[in-house]
């Protein structure tokens, strides 16, 4: 029961951050700011959802369930490593081919 509440709260928080990340992609002005919204809010959201699933999975406490939860936590850890690496690679590539960043001075009258 308590586990269910904890996992529901975690997954709901994760979905909230997913929604904010998606809104950010739609609202931000240029490529770089959109990468920010896409890459970052989503990594926290994905980790929150994964931890929520891992907690939910502990409902029947057996060795197999604990092992599955540990595997889910490993996925979360790898998301934390791979997500910033991908964000960095995309941003670096965009700068290299010369995508111009949006700046405040240029766009305020």
């Amino acid at each position, binding site marked *: 029961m308590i586990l269910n509440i904890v996992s529901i709260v975690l997954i709901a928080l994760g979905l909230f951050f997913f929604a*904010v990340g998606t809104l950010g992609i739609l609202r931000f002005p240029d490529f770089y700011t959109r*990468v920010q919204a896409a890459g*970052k809010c989503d990594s*926290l959201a994905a980790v929150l959802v994964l931890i929520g699933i891992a907690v939910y999975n502990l409902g029947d406490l057996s060795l*197999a369930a604990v092992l599955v939860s540990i595997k889910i936590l490993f996925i979360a850890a790898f998301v934390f490593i791979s997500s*910033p690496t991908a964000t*960095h690679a995309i941003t*670096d590539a965009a700068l290299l081919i010369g995508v111009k*960043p949006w700046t*405040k001075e240029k766009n305020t009258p």
Partner: protein
Amino acid sequence: MAKVVTFFVMFAFWVVMSGMFDAFHLSLGVVSCLLIAHFSHSLLLYGDPKSWGRGFFGILFYLPWLFWEILISNLQVTYIVLHPRMLDLIDPQLVRFKTSLKRPLSKVTLAQSITLTPGTVTVDIEEDELLVYALTASGAESLPGSAMERRIAAALEGGK
């Protein structure tokens, strides 16, 4: 030494991943972990054996603080995204700054941490200079000599 430690880390990982404890699966694990430990032991652990434990426990104690920082800065970005006059709040800019960190591991940790905290992305590292793209002016100003850098230095470079 590196091979032995790599073998045990790999084997522990194998056991957790497979979840099978019969002789057949365990011996398969022993064989493949021995092969991996023999051929790629220099990837996981390198340098002075004394620094391995420091790296592992340093990162272990650094992670909770990082997670807290990620939560806080995520809330800041959430505020910016949901703000009606969002374009007034953001002021994107590229910043260069020097870091005092020496080990490659701690530089990578710093770069990844900067990218993980919303509002800042590490674009490039050359020697000891980081190129960072920041979403707001305050995010850009807080980068050089940040608490993050000090904590990484304490966690991964303290004893040197």
